[in-house]
């Protein structure tokens, strides 16, 4: 005798503790197994691209803060690089180093959140998350020192950064780096080889490289899929051509690898920051550009960076006016979600949450 069972459709989100904001997936379950997935977006859609068309080039910087609010510095950087490409200018070297440095600090902060929430979704009751926040707090404090805000930094401007770091920033940064290595080692000790974490994540939801590439997946997820691709290496912007770092590559393409790649990237970021501190030279930090920028009409530029979530690109078109004619944002979080079906179907409810955590989406960026 067979017992007839019915598939069950559940709305996971938009109000759910672990969908990273207001993300909603309609999932059809067969028991605990997922048979169908349909992502629904738009709950945080603020029309950033339209807003950008009505603001001048510098004002758009403040909008980029609010895309992926866990990595505002990198968003600023991507946008400023695009505008600089559009204008055909190069920021002074000190500004480039400052940008690299702050972007890497932001990457650490973002990855700490990603790892923390990843483990939180595995069910560790907040401990790794709080350890991550402990260090992130220090980074945010450094940002406050630099630019007066912790999350919505607006630190960078087309043509450099708005101001040089204050004098007490450098000792504070050094102190942070000293403490952070210990704190992070603690986190690695707690998580990296934990057997429960291993059996929960090893072999779960692998994304083969050819699938990842075809789905335009980027960032740590792409690298965890075994593809050796990092825009910081392939197309060095700012000071990335001056620093040395390794690119961690996953070999099993699974959730554990995505988690592992992030942990390793934090280590590499520390390396980059240290080199930046050693190499940075005094000098001006901002080009003498007018407050209201007017790039030539008809020019366009696609500026991209390796953001903490993946390839963040700004495609700007100018019509000679004071605001971008079109500002398309290639948001890594949204496009990484293309693999969601591949990622979830066939796995269990508990794995689904973890897999979502492993691609580390941020709804501010998905919906824009």
């Amino acid at each position, binding site marked *: 005798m067979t017992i007839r069972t019915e598939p069950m459709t559940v709305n996971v989100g938009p109000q759910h503790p672990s969908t990273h904001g207001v993300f909603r997936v309609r999932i059809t379950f067969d028991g605990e197994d997922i048979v169908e997935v349909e992502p629904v977006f738009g709950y945080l859609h603020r029309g950033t691209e339209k807003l950008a068309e009505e603001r001048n080039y510098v004002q758009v910087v403040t909008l980029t803060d609010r895309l992926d609010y866990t990595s505002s510095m990198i968003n600023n950087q991507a946008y400023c690089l695009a505008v600089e490409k559009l204008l055909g200018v190069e920021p002074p070297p000190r500004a480039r180093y400052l940008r690299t440095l702050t972007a890497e600090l932001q990457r650490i902060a973002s990855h700490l959140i990603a790892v923390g929430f990843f483990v939180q979704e595995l069910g560790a009751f907040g401990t790794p998350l709080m350890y991550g926040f*402990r260090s992130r707090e220090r980074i945010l404090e450094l940002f406050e020192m630099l630019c*007066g805000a912790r999350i919505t930094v607006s630190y960078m401007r087309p043509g450099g950064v708005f101001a040089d770091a204050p004098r007490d920033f450098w000792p504070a940064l050094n102190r942070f780096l000293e403490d952070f290595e210990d704190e992070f080692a603690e986190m690695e000790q707690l998580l990296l080889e934990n057997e429960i974490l291993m059996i929960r994540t090893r072999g779960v939801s692998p994304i083969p490289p050819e699938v990842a590439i075809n789905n335009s997946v980027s960032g740590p997820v792409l690298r965890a899929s075994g593809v050796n691709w990092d825009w910081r290496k392939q197309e060095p912007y700012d000071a990335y051509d001056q620093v040395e770092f390794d690119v961690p590559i996953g070999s099993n393409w699974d959730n554990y690898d995505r988690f592992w790649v992030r942990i390793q990237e934090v280590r590499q970021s520390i390396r980059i920051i240290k080199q930046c501190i050693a190499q940075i030279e005094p000098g001006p930090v901002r080009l003498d550009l007018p407050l209201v920028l007017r790039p030539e009409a008809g020019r366009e530029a696609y500026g991209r960076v390796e953001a903490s979530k993946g390839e963040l690109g700004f495609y700007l078109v100018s019509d000679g006016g004071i605001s971008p004619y079109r500002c398309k944002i290639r948001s890594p979080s949204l496009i990484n979600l293309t693999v969601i079906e591949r990622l979830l179907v066939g796995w269990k409810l508990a794995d689904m949450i973890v897999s979502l955590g492993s691609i580390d989406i941020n709804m501010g960026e998905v919906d824009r």
Partner: protein
Amino acid sequence: MYGLAMVKGLMVTLKNLTRKPFTIQYPEERAKQHPRFRGEEFVWYEERCTGCASCAKYCPLGIIKIETSPSGSMIPQGEKYRLEVFDIELQRCMFCGLCVEACPYDALFMGSGFEQGQYSRKNMVITIDQLRNAEKHPSTWFRPQLEGYEGGTDSFRRTPTIAQGESRFSYDPRGGPPLGWREVGRESWRWHQREKAGMRLEQGEAVPDTGRDELPQSARDSDAAAD
């Protein structure tokens, strides 16, 4: 051995049990706030403001409302505009600080407070009177002269570097006496005052001393005219 990492994890958490908490108990303790903090109450120096509305134009949200009228005073030096309305709608402000960046006369500064919660949206508008009467503790955001770096005064947009300037003093917006309008500007106040009035002074021309401790006559005049 299998399971060893789990024991290691237990040791890590146990070690942290003995540590001091890193959180801060807010009303009793406060996190250290850095002088560049972009806070809520704006600091505005009427004496420095020409009513050019650069801030209003540069605000990404358009929340600064400025109305001016010709004051009828200082006509020989050019017109001096009287400010009638200078409203900042704080409820929509995102504290990006671009208005401060846009101000060419160092008249507008960010504040350093963050505890201005109100029960009504009406109360969230900072009016010109509030701006006039407020204690002036400007934030050093985009005002390198307040951070005391030498070399910050030569050019408007070229901000100083560590090597160029040494900090002369450590200014903290949350402590110490309020700053007067003469102390906060990038240029010397006398020169600035004349420039504001529209008078084109030649470089090197002697500037008559108008008395250091008094308000500029023009500001007084305009106030009187308003009454």
